[in-house]
């Protein structure tokens, strides 16, 4: 380990002869972790392919951090197994797992300068001072902070501190990179910027990465694959567009992206009737007996909206999202839907306008409804 770092000090990261990504496969297998009677991990299984960035998304308290910490060995498991490069590391202590981790809270060592923070892992590995400084300097350059090498953490902004933390995590050539909501303490602009940069660096380095967040936009934009968690379980995992367009259940449908839920009725011919219109179901959604009451989940873009003095919808709010306008519309029966339309066509529609709203199929998701 020590040898490789010293020898590789000039090239940032070790590459295969073929130039393939050097990432390793990482697996959580049937992991269980209880805190008292709360199952923070409830038979969670997750595999991350070499060089892949998987984002774990879920509401606060669903067990994302616990999953990440279990992978790192910072949290013991009550059941299950952690595998890195097909080797069971469940009993291997954290400091021998060769990981890099970036935390939600600022975690730089306050008494060390940026470059000493980055070189810390190398110092623990007894890398000589000259080689250590050289490599730490390269990592700081990778995160764009060469000029701040001599600064102390309190002299850096939040975004800069997290960059240094990323450089510090990567300096030891870890096999896996773990990020626990690294952007949540930053403000929106810095957050988006640093998010893209993390992705750029991750691709450049080719390291297997688990990125935990409760921010769906962050998860959708950064991930190769997106895992959605709830109550310690993995509800669904897939590419961001798969998860967005084909949610596996109602929770995923409503947690990722915006949806409106409308009461509807199944009708013959693989259709549902909603808002007085019939829309077609995808074959896998056509599992309801005709006449049964259902909830129909629709994305804002699955509606046709136009200004209509006789329309039954009343616009409650409108928000401008660049190319599209998002409207909250009240419909008869105390139903509120979120719809979007091209900003150019939204012209005279404002709060209080009457509009007509038509659903366009197929729906995002359909569930049974007991209350009717």
């Amino acid at each position: 380990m020590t040898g490789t770092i010293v020898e590789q000090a000039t090239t940032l990261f070790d590459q295969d002869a073929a130039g393939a990504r050097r990432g390793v496969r990482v697996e959580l297998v049937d992991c269980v972790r209880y805190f008292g009677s709360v199952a923070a991990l409830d038979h969670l299984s997750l595999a991350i392919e070499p060089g892949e960035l998987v984002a774990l998304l879920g509401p606060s308290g669903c067990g994302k951090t616990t999953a990440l910490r279990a992978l790192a060995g910072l949290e013991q498991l009550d059941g299950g197994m952690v595998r890195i490069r097909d080797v069971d590391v469940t009993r291997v202590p954290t400091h021998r797992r060769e990981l890099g981790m970036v935390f939600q809270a600022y975690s730089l060592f306050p008494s060390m300068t940026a470059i000493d923070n980055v070189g810390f892992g190398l110092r623990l590995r007894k890398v000589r001072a000259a080689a250590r400084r050289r490599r730490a300097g390269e990592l700081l350059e990778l995160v764009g902070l060469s000029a701040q090498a001599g600064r102390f953490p309190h002299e850096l902004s939040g975004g800069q501190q997290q960059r240094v933390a990323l450089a510090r995590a990567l300096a030891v050539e870890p096999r896996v990179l773990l990020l626990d909501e690294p952007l949540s303490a930053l403000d929106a602009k810095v957050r988006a910027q640093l998010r893209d940069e993390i992705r750029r660096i991750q691709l450049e380095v080719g390291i297997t990465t688990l990125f935990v967040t409760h921010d769906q936009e962050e998860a959708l934009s950064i991930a190769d694959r997106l895992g959605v968690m709830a109550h310690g379980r993995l509800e669904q995992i897939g590419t961001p567009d798969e998860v967005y367009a084909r949610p596996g259940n109602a929770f995923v449908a409503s947690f990722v992206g915006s949806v409106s839920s409308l009461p509807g009725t199944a009708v013959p011919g693989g259709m549902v009737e909603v808002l007085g219109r019939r829309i077609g179901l995808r074959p896998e959604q056509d599992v309801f007996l005709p006449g049964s009451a259902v909830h129909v989940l629709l994305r804002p873009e699955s509606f046709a909206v136009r200004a209509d003095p006789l329309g039954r919808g009343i616009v409650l709010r409108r928000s401008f999202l660049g190319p599209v306008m998002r409207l909250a519309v009240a419909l008869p029966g105390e139903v509120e839907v979120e719809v979007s339309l091209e900003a150019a066509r939204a012209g005279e529609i404002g709060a209080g306008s009457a509009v007509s709203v038509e659903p366009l199929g197929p729906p995002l998701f359909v569930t049974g409804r007991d209350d009717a």
Partner: protein
Amino acid sequence: MAALTIRRRAGASGAGPARRATAAGFRFGLPLRGAVLALSALYFLVPLLASGRFALEGARGTWTLSAVRALAHDGALWSSLLLSVEIALGAAAITLALLSPTSVWVNLRLPRLRRVLEGLTLVPLVVPVVVVVLGLYGAFPPAFVTSPALLALEYVVLAMPYSYRVIDGAVQSLDLHTLTDAGRTLGGGWVQTFFRVLLPQLRTSLMSAAFITIAYCLGEFAMASLLGFTTFPVQLFQIGTEQIDEATAVSVFALLLVFLLLATLSLLGGKRRVARGSIVAGGDGTAAEPPRPARAGRS
């Protein structure tokens, strides 16, 4: 060391606004503060000056250094001082070695025991020394009870109400979990993480705890005397029964010593606070992004 220098420099560059704020505060409360300061100074200085005068006064209004001269040649006094210093340094070392890992471990792993431990460290304040001494004679063979090592251990316990509070306060002010997690994922075991990550953060407080323990040891009389050790205060008492002016000279000297110690300490502490203040004042203003939220903010 380099770290300290840079910190101070940063403090100097950003001290402007902070100093102005302080000046405004002074203008407002100056008369009151002055009075309080003068009264406290009198309270401490008058006995000190009187003692000094008593020590240096000869017969019928003359001044003499005879007491001081006698002191310098008093072999028993110097050997008692040496014994006291040895015991004090030993006690300070044991205090740091014992209490800093304990406080870290309790705060990290057994937070529910924190209050219990805090209570336990207060026990020496309420148990009379005589009781402790009797207990020692009951518990240990006499040979061990008369070893200076035991006295050092006793002082560790007796000074604990003060030393533990200082250390534990500093440990609690750290974001222990994040720092240790970071240290461990970077490849440090518990021991390395403790020494390389946490100790540098605790340096000032550990120094304070050591000084408190040392000051306690140099001044403690009852326990040493009851156990039959001729430590500095015990010797001082003995001199006092024979040559009161010499004893007074020694105590003035001892007081000055402790005063210097404390002054150095608070000066060091003061400098650190100024350096911290510069963060608020904005440092050199080159940070490209908005200021970060409060340190260690786990949301």
